[in-house]
């Protein structure tokens, strides 16, 4: 499903963002990527949807070899992925329905197919009423739900989310996590980078912690912080 083998990423300015990362994620898993800012989470996420190309190593997602693939194959890869960001990245001049439909337009679906798929996915994220609104007429939580709807409208096998709740209040965050959980329950793999301790602790899944460009922890059903760290904190008090 998703395989990384000895992946390294060094930026042009010489900064080494990821070192020797090896990782396998199976279909249907829900994975949290945690770690401090600058640890390399976003670099890893960008490698996954091929916004960046690894300096060394091997990455395979949905049977695409990301290091060997040609530039013109990138759109094909991205059609098998859904990507969600902290800042939503919606097209401001398009309505909610058009934003979501765009992902289907580019793969050549007919208007009627698009209409019914968009309607369905809008219901899934609870925004059926807002179809004709523009993004700036919606709250942050609603915008993120539109972004999620766009990411899942062509039923990708993998949903990649980079701090999807980073800009949202706790209550809205809860709603977003419910949606993501439902998507995961339907069989979609979810890889989510987050800083939100509460989410990770209350909705336990596999936790991969990155520090200084390396995987330092890979724990099924783990907590946001390592238990040893927690013990230290407790004893320090």
């Amino acid at each position, binding site marked *: 499903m998703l395989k990384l083998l000895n992946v390294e990423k060094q930026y042009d300015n010489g900064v080494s963002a990821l070192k020797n990362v090896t990782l396998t994620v199976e279909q249907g898993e829900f994975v949290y990527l945690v770690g401090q800012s600058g640890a390399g989470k976003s670099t890893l996420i960008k490698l996954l949807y091929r916004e960046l190309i690894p300096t060394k190593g091997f990455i395979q997602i949905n049977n695409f070899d990301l290091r060997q693939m040609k530039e*013109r194959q990138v*759109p094909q*890869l*991205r059609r098998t992925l859904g990507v969600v960001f902290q800042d939503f*990245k919606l097209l401001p001049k398009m309505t909610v329905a058009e934003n979501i439909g765009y992902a289907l337009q580019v793969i050549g679906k007919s208007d009627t197919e698009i209409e019914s798929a968009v309607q369905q996915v809008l219901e899934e994220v609870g925004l059926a009423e807002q179809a004709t609104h523009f993004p700036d007429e919606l709250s942050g939580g609603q915008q993120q739900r539109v972004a999620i709807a*766009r990411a899942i409208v062509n039923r990708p096998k993998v949903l990649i989310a980079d701090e999807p709740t980073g800009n949202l209040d706790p209550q809205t965050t809860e709603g977003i996590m419910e949606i993501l959980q439902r998507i995961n329950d339907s069989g979609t793999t979810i890889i989510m980078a987050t800083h939100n301790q509460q989410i990770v602790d209350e909705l336990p899944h596999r936790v991969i912690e990155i520090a200084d460009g390396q995987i330092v922890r890979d724990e099924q059903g783990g907590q946001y912080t390592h238990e040893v760290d927690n013990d230290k904190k407790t004893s320090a008090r």
Partner: protein
Amino acid sequence: MKWTTIKRHLRDSLRSLKRNGWMAFAAISGVAVTILLVGISLALVFNVTKLSRDVENDVRVQVLVEPKTTAKQKDTLKSELKEITGVKTVSYSSKANELKKVVSQYGNSFKMFSGDDNPLNDVFTVKANDPKATVKIAKKAAKIKHVAKASYGGDQARKLFRTMDSVRNWGVAFSVLLLIVAIFLIANTIRITILSRRNEIEIMRLVGATRWYIRWPFILEGAWTGLLGAIVPLIIIDFGYASVYRAVGRQLATSGYSLMTTSQLVWPLNLTLLLVAMLIGAFGAAISMRRFLKV
């Protein structure tokens, strides 16, 4: 490309033009100003070219016949003139006829010279196949019997040719320069509008749109910008030219020359400029978005 995709691109490009209101307006105004300048200078060049051709074609040798030449001698003279190499036509005008022309141009006071007081000569007007042969023809004609004088405007004609040539060349150079300026101006304006939409392009790439799928609506939008930008200046030029033609055309007509008629100028100019504006708009968009499509 599938028909639905083409329809979609057309629809998207028009919609985006509408929704990007102010940016589109800025780009369209930029196009309008340059197309107005290019249009005016092209109208000038076209007309200078036509006038200079008119003048060139109009250069002729005036062969003045000696007084008291008999009709028979005049016939011989005419056929001799026709035999000179490079001569196209030879036409005769009696001195009475010449006086009529003078009267019509300068007024009735010249009527006092009519009849035996007429100081003018009978005239053969000789036209050359090639205007540049005029000088040689005049020299040869001057040597024929019963010819009082053969004049072609001499240095004046040569000067006129030179002036017309340089006016035309400078006019063309100026238009080309303006067109280059127009390309830069339009491309830059579109560049700014696209710069403000780089996020849009990023998102399109993110959901798996191919480069050409992203490019087409922008290119079409550029073409619409060019088209819309060209309409107002073209209307101004069309109406403006019509009134210039009415005003200047009449004055010129008395001297035997004419501007291009409105219909002669307006249609080719409109079509050329519309096409140029659309192409520049489309190219400008394509060039401006190139770097945003790189990974």
